[in-house]
């Protein structure tokens, strides 16, 4: 089998990348490989609204948002194969398996990695206690409720205040379950402010910051969990233990980009994002392999996923069409005080269309701060913000012209006060 561009994963990232690539160059043959039985990725189980405010100026549900993209596939030179799992990626070739073709190879000129992310499971959190039924990741619970139509429990404690956990607190409550508490290890929430208001505050669900679960009880099904407050070093404070009877513990403790395929083909990974290191064109350390969406870094808004993925798709189309290898000097983007990571990690000016968008997350909560961007040591941006939290992605935009003379590096940092 052959395609000009293979897109691995048909979630919002894969859809946007495919559409942009096919529009960029209508002669190219684009193939999406998706392991699920439908396109749309994680959006299919997100039946709440809140998607697409930036892209469509509307509040859509997840499936509606995905549908807007799926409709654009007709009329473009895009094929897709469902129930097809990609097993291996290498420069110029992708191996996959499905029930009709068996194991097969697709030869291609460019690959866009759009595999999304998975949830951090209980085991990775080292939560002590027994291992009864009734412990779910929030995303699994979301699927059971929204897609299968079944309740995973009646009395719920949620550990972690990531967005999926917050949304599930509301969803379970609306379905008649009692959500007793959301515990968050950190002194701040990892979720969006709007989700804390709309999903917890509006339903009087307590958010216990600096709290964690220290024991799970129940042999067959969860009967209670023991929570405790933690000190600055995140260690449980003796005497603060509290046992909460419940039959369910939902975990919303972070997402991990699904980079097993990327690692296996030796794409360079950024330890801060657990996603590939990319340049302004979303090209990884291997020429012709691009990455975007949650596999690159975990996003809180799908609009940004779509926008970034469209760029990745366009870049892939240009890569296929151009015969000359990329040259030009690379400008490193460095993380300064308070900045955990940036995407991209480096820039080649000739790869830019117009502006350069740098997305980043802070490593902590900062109040009354400035976001500073320095080019070769000269301040280019000095933007005041009231608050910045690790739960919300930030961005700064630089003009292409600002970079034309840059010889050294771009530094992004947070200055307090």
């Amino acid at each position, binding site marked *: 089998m052959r395609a000009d561009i293979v897109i691995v994963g048909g979630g919002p990232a894969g859809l946007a990348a495919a559409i942009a690539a096919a529009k960029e160059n209508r002669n190219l043959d684009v193939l999406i490989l998706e*392991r699920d039985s439908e396109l749309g990725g994680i959006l299919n189980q997100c039946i709440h609204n809140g998607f697409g405010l930036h892209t469509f100026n509307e509040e859509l549900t997840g499936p509606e948002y995905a549908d807007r993209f799926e409709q654009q596939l007709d009329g473009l030179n895009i094929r897709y194969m469902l*129930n097809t*799992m990609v*097993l291996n990626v290498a420069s110029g070739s992708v191996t996959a*398996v*499905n*029930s*009709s*073709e*068996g*194991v*097969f190879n697709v030869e291609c000129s460019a690959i866009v990695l759009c595999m999304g992310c*998975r*949830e951090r*499971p*209980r*085991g*990775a959190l*080292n939560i*002590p*206690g*027994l*291992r*009864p*039924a*009734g412990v*779910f*990741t929030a*995303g*699994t619970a979301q*699927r*059971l*409720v929204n*897609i*299968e*139509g*079944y*309740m*995973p*429990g*009646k009395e719920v404690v949620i550990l972690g205040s990531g967005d999926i956990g917050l949304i599930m607190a509301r969803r379970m409550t609306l*379905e*008649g379950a009692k959500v007793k508490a959301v515990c968050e290890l950190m002194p701040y929430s990892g979720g969006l402010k709007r989700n804390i208001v709309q999903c917890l505050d509006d339903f009087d669900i307590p958010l216990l910051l600096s709290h964690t679960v*220290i*024991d799970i009880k129940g*042999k*067959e*099904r969860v009967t209670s969990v023991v929570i405790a407050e933690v000190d600055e070093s995140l260690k449980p404070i003796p005497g603060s233990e509290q046992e909460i009877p419940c*039959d*369910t513990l939902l975990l919303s403790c972070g997402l991990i980009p699904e980079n*097993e395929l990327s*690692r296996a083909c030796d794409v360079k990974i950024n330890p801060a994002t657990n996603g590939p290191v990319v340049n302004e064109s979303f090209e990884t350390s291997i020429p012709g392999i691009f990455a975007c969406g949650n596999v690159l870094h975990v996003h809180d808004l799908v609009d940004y996923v779509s926008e970034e993925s469209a760029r990745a798709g366009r870049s892939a189309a240009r890569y296929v069409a151009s015969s000359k290898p990329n040259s030009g000097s690379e400008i490193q983007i460095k993380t300064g005080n308070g900045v955990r990571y940036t995407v991209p990690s480096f820039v080649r000016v000739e790869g830019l269309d117009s502006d350069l968008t740098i997305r980043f997350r802070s490593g902590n909560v900062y109040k009354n701060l400035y976001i500073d961007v320095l080019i070769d040591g000269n301040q280019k941006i000095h933007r005041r913000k009231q608050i910045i939290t690790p739960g919300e992605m930030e961005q700064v935009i630089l003009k292409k012209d600002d970079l034309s003379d840059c010889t050294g590096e771009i530094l992004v940092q947070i200055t307090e006060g």
Partner: protein
Amino acid sequence: MNEQYDIIIIGAGVTGSAIARELSCFDCKVLVLEKDEDLCCGTSKANSGIVHAGYDAKPGTFKARMNLRGNQMMPSLCEELDIPFKQIGSLVVCTDESQRSGITELFERGISNGVPDMKILEADEVRELEPNISDDVVCALYAPTAGIICPFRLNIALAECANQNGVEFRFDCPVTSIESSASGFIVHSYDSVFECSVVVNCAGCHADEIHNMVSGNKLHITPRRGDYILLDRSCEGFVNHVIFPQPTKLGKGILVTPTVHGNILAGPTAIDNDSRDEAPLTSEGIAKVLEGTAKNVKGLPVKQVITGFSGLRAHEDGGEFILEEVSDCPGFFDCVGIESPGLTACPAIGEYMARLIADKLSLSLKAFWNSECKDIVKPFELSDEERSALISSHPEYGKIICRCETITEGEIIDAVKRPLGARSLDGVKRRTRAGMGRCQGGFCSPRVMEIISRELGVPLDTVTKNGGSSKILTGRTKDES
């Protein structure tokens, strides 16, 4: 009329299953009673999965003899029963010059026990084999006959083979009392009553309770917990052998080892546990495992931990395997105190006990006995061509259900449909590895539940994690009810 058997085995762990398989070649009617919902629900499911070489136990003890014999039997047994087994060898590492004599002692004990091909390696040789070994390494005892095995498959394969040769199994069937009768025993499990000539007690952590139902010479087991952490397969190659510290009075200590499936396992602790059934993982336990491993290897990639678990050793006060006909209760056979190296020893215990019982009942061999049994077909162990051929005849082997471990719908259907098949999520997991990967079933568990429900014809919301009241779902949502 009560159900009649020649032999009733209590417990479907590796010990009971190995004895059942050995007895299945004789002309007799055998029943295995298991209190849990499936095979391999006790200690046999939570251990290090090491086939020990045999230098640990005191010469002359059952522990020493059964270990060595079990180790010798294991390669061909694994061949016959299609069990993942790798003879990767073990290293007992000395990190303190003043303790070097301990390694020599262990070597000599190994020689007395009959362990072949052992060598004492010096620090450089150890580093060559294991680049991540502690900088403090002084020397190590190398035993090439030690290996790693899939404990689930070992247990399940022994039972499947016994079953295919006529042994019956009953699950959710705890033995609640035993009476002697004119012709042997009357065994009760709630409302069910069975009669038999011989009882074999393989009840793991409950074996003292079962023994004490019939004998005046009381036994006493202390459940001793071992906590573990398991690392993702991406850590494959971190160590290449089973790495032990030097043993102490408390046991073999905290080891680091590859598993047959390419994960890295570290543990166990040794902590007395109140319950015989519930083995909670504790933060102290995890901390001890980390502390213990740090002494032998450097830079364990702890960020790659995907799960933790604990198992319970059935430690009898005497500290020895009790393998005998109970002196004050003829016809009642004990396998009590089967702590480590019980997994290694099980084929030997099976052989030994079956011989005692066959002699007792003067059993004769069956005309036909099938010693072999195949595992579930695993498409990802086949070549691309073979896999494609399988998929074209059986498309369900092209549909991936567990993404982390690439387990297909075909394998899960087989796990449920085969004799003594899985009925719960954990049952499917032990047979196929679906849900054992880095996402720990987050993605596949709803799909596996659907397959169980469909194949067994039971409502989705009755599917359990591991039987009893461990239901996964609590009902329908408002729209669906």
